[in-house]
């Protein structure tokens, strides 16, 4: 049968975090010796498909390396064969499945293919399926599109006629559907047939999926449906001798690939090629990828060790089945956690706060200390801090510092706050002013602060790592490198809109010898990125987005340069932010007493002078009013939505951009009884909205992390977000067919996409209260805790210390 050609969609990245730093999901090792894409390719070979195109996203080297010419799957042919069709525009971030637009970049491939049908499937599904049987049913049922399902799960795998697919592709900018998924969901008058796959199958989108699917292979009933003797899964040929078991080997229900040397204990685990497990080591419930070395007496439970991880003698690694520990490729692991960390920031709650940074630094330092780390923090001694804390802190010492060839005297004070050693640097001229930012000499002020911090390290230290926050600390790595100081630095990017542009003269004032001047200005943040040992930002998705100019702006080149040292760690949410601890709201509640939320809804309506009633669909917004929060698309979408519905209400709290506020007022005037604005962050507390609304809107254009959506979810208010940054990492969009998800999401930054999502939410709220309630509950049960964030940072600190020789 030669009637079908195949498109393998490898354009999606999933939420595999560290596992996809160096590879795409399709190239992920699986069951010790395979790669995920082997399943798609082998299934195609067994269906005699001879024309296959792989559409990868960005970095596809490891995938290309693996598939080669396709010979292993009989795809190295004169006619047809294997095609890897890269994106033409690397600047377009990836969606959740291949778009018609992406296919249009290679429309010639589709036109030239001679087969009548197209199979479109994913690179990250573990299964053994007969695609010919699907095609047979597709033809028999005279379907327009056949979608392959596993019970209620959608597999983003379709069969469609080549001609129809080409029509969609050519008209990608005219039709309201971006993907075949959209077509199946929304297009009228389409015969969709559903083919139900009966055997084992799992799409690998998250770390848990990956862990589970591997461990599943240890069950005979699953494994034999995937690895069949008559339909083998074919992979790239590698050379390795049989696994060797030595005298002290002790194995229980595990799979071990070739080349491994086992002399320890292995229980319920998957061991990849050429892994060495030494005497006394114990590996349980874990996946160990190729070339890793587990040294004597190491204990590993619930972990995924990426390729060539080295676990040093006696190290303990412990994850959970839900959240296995994940190492990074070539990581060296020890158990060291008695390190001391110095945080440097321009603000920290409760001492000084102008924005979210203060809360993040406070939450993080506190929770690191709770985990037993020795945590210190240094801040400038601002006027207001001095006023409030003068009676509490004690003077440590004073020091003379040379800046701009002049001597400056600083004094250092300290206090202990929630187990964190807080140090304040006093300098009258630079820090004791009315405001903390916004002066012409901010560059000098913070350059001086950076210099002062580096000069007191020996007095208050030593520290293993100096953790820096935002541009105000950006010169510290440069100063330390210039002095050849041994301290390692970690710079966290909270907000790249402020980068600290100042006169290049500052470098001379700091007496820095090694510096290449490229401009008469310097950029604090850019210098920080260039010089810090490692970098983080506030969510894994934002970390990836920053590689594109659209998000990373002028910093994209320097961030790309540092890509392998750059991590995304989601900010955490304090336990205080939850409806069972909230004394401001009218009725406290939790996931079990979710019905008490209605009191809060009625209270909100009353408070905002809206018509009271539970049937109203109440939308809530708590946001700074700024362009990048998505008002450009929000305004037209809301206007449309309120025009076409009657039982809907909106409460908005926020302040900011005058022009946008004017437009919002117009909208409020147009729908007087249903839209209420509170443009001043004053009387109404945001908690009323979090507790009282049904749907929380956050259609941001850019959202590095975002906390409001997490708060809304904790309060059981279903979020509607654009899939960007931290929003993409926290909200899983609702799928109408499987009824899964904890919110609503859309991807394209246009009013139409937002509007569609709004109507979808509205319909569900009106017509399916059970599902709605399930979504509320899923949100309330999500874990966005500060503890989790702190744990991730501790892992990163360990990684930095263990691998310090590499930089």
């Amino acid at each position: 049968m030669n009637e079908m050609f195949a498109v393998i969609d490898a354009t999606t990245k999933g939420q595999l975090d560290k596992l996809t730093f160096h590879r795409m999901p399709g190239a992920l090792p699986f069951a010790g010796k395979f790669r995920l894409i082997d399943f798609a390719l082998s299934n195609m070979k067994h269906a005699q498909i001879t024309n296959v195109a792989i559409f990868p996203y960005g970095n596809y080297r490891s995938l290309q390396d693996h598939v080669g010419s396709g010979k292993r799957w009989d795809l190295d042919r004169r006619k047809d064969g294997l095609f890897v069709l890269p994106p033409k525009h690397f600047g377009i971030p990836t969606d959740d499945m291949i778009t018609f637009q992406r296919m249009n970049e290679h429309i010639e491939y589709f036109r030239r293919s001679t087969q009548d049908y197209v199979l479109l499937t994913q690179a990250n599904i573990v299964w053994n399926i007969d695609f010919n049987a699907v095609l047979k049913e597709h033809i028999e049922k005279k379907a327009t599109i056949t979608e392959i399902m596993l019970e209620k799960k959608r597999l983003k795998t379709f069969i469609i006629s080549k001609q129809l697919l080409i029509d969609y592709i050519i008209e990608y900018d005219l039709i309201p559907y971006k993907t075949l998924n959209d077509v199946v969901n929304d297009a009228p008058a389409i015969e969709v047939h559903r083919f139900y796959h009966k055997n084992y199958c799992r799409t690998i989108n998250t770390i848990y999926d990956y862990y589970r699917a591997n461990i599943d292979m240890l069950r005979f009933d699953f494994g034999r449906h995937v690895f069949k003797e008559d339909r083998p899964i074919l992979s790239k040929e590698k050379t390795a001798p049989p696994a060797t078991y030595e005298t002290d080997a002790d194995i229980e229900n595990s799979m071990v690939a070739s080349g491994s040397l086992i002399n320890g204990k292995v229980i319920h685990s998957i061991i990849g090629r050429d892994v060495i497990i030494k005497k006394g080591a114990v590996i349980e419930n874990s996946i160990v990828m190729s070339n890793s070395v587990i040294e004597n007496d190491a204990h590993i439970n619930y972990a995924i060790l990426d390729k060539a991880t080295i676990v040093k003698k006696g190290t303990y690694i412990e994850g959970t089945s839900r959240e296995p520990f994940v190492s990074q490729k070539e990581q060296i692991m020890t158990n060291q956690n008695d390190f001391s960390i110095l945080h440097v920031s321009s603000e920290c709650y409760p001492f000084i706060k102008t924005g979210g940074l203060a809360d993040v630094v406070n939450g993080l330092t506190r929770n690191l200390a709770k985990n037993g780390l020795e945590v210190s923090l240094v801040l400038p001694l601002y006027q207001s801090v001095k006023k409030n804390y003068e009676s509490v802190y004690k003077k440590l010492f004073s020091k003379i510092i040379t800046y701009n060839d002049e001597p400056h005297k600083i004094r250092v004070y300290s206090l202990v706050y929630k187990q964190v050693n807080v140090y304040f640097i006093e300098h009258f001229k630079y820090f004791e002013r009315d405001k903390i930012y916004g002066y012409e000499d901010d560059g000098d002020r913070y350059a001086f602060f950076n210099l002062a911090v580096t000069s007191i390290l020996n007095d208050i230290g030593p520290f293993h790592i100096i953790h820096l926050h935002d541009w105000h600390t950006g010169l510290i790595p440069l100063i330390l490198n210039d002095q050849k100081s041994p301290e390692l630095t970690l710079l966290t990017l909270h907000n790249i809109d402020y980068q600290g542009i100042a006169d290049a003269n500052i470098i001379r004032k700091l007496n820095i010898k090694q510096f290449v001047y490229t401009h008469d200005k310097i950029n604090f943040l850019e210098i920080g990125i260039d010089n810090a040992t490692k970098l983080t930002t506030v969510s894994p998705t934002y970390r990836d987005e920053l590689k594109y100019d659209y998000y990373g702006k002028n910093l994209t080149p320097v961030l790309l340069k540092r890509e392998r040292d750059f991590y995304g760690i989601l900010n955490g949410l304090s336990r205080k932010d939850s409806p069972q601890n909230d004394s401001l709201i009218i009725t406290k509640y939790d996931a079990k007493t979710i019905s008490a939320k209605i009191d809060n809804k009625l209270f909100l309506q009353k408070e905002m002078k809206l018509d009271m009633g539970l049937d109203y669909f109440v939308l809530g917004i708590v946001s700074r009013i700024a362009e990048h929060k998505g008002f450009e698309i929000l305004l037209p979408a809301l206007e449309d939505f309120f025009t076409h519905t009657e039982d809907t209400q909106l409460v908005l709290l926020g302040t900011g951009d005058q022009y946008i506020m004017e437009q919002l007022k117009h909208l409020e005037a147009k729908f007087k009884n249903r839209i209420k604005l509170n443009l001043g962050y004053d009387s109404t507390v945001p908690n009323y909205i979090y507790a009282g609304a049904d749907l929380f809107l956050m259609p941001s254009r850019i959202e590095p992390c975002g906390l409001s959506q997490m708060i809304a979810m904790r309060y059981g208010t279903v979020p509607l977000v654009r899939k960007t940054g931290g929003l993409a990492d926290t909200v899983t969009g609702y799928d109408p067919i499987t009824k899964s998800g904890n919110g609503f999401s859309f991807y394209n930054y246009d009013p139409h996409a937002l509007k569609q999502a709004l109507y979808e939410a509205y319909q569900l709220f009106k017509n399916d209260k059970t599902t709605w309630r399930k979504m509320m509950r899923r949100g309330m049960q999500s874990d966005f805790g500060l503890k989790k964030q702190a744990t991730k940072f501790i892992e990163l600190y360990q990684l930095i210390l263990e691998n310090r020789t590499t930089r």
Partner: protein
Amino acid sequence: MKKRVIAMVLVGGRGTRLGPITKFTAKPAVSFGGKYRLIDFVLSNLTNSRIDTVGIVTQYEPHELMQYIQRGATWDLDTSDGGIHFLTPYTSYEGEQWQKGTAHAILQHLRFIKEYNPDYVLILSGDHVYKMNYKPMIEAHKKSQAEITIATFKPEDSLSRYGVLVTDEKENIIDFQEKPDQPKGEHASMGIYVFNTACLEIILKDALTDEADFGKNIIPKALHQGKRLKSYRFDGYFRDVGTIESLYAANMDLIDHPEYLKLHDYKALPLYTKSQDLPPHHIASKAVVSESLISDGSLIMGRVKRSIISSNVLINHQASVENSLVHAHVKIGENAKIKNCILLENTYVLPNTSLLFDEITVIDNELLWALGGHEHE
């Protein structure tokens, strides 16, 4: 197409001393170390020596070998201007050309050799266990201006099994003894020869007699004719696994002396073998495995000690395998006991069978049938 070196691999031997192991298999296709076959050594050595033009001279049971080697892609020998060539006996107007001895086999394919007009012809056997880079040997051959160079090794066992080469202090070969009772030298021939092509042609044509074997006939003759013969000493691990005992011992060396063949060393002289497209092996909950090698696709539920298990082997609950070699697709039933055996491919051992031997015993279905599936001590 001119090539500097081409290799002729002799895989014709019947291997009668291996008994039932070679009943249906040419000796070079015999399983080794769980996932290898003997021929993997010579083919891997060739690719590691960057020699890409190879004639495989077959005679006995060639199909399995041809099926296995195909175009040599596993060893990266599927090049467009050289590659693997199967050279089988053929009939010509001169009459039937059934090969009579190893040299005769090469002579028959002289036309193939001349097609590539090589400077040197490397003659190898397909059934030895060793890792060797042939390049230094060829360079030494060239430098010494010899016409024939023979690789030699120092056997661990008695020299009387081998062809012994007697050399002077400059490694010139001055005498040859075939399986001598009283050897005059310490070094035996490995059956690896580098010939100047012209010399090979002349000497083979002269030797167009009934029986022509390199060891027995050609080398003594060349010595007699006053050709320049050199010995090339090889210090590495080399085994001619011509008997059941030596085959078993070489396998067991993988467990006891992994440093001999260094199978884990992929950088220097990796050993390639054809992929079986199998998942990793699975060791079930109550299995006990020690001092053993286990290959892909196998499922171990019983006990395995000091054994080498090939691919797709099933060892059921309470079965035990000790000091044995288990070839591919063998199934061992519950509570079966196996010691000192070589279980050939596809052997099915019924539950509760005892195959406990003091000497290494080759087991196949036929033998089990003869034993009647009864307990055997």
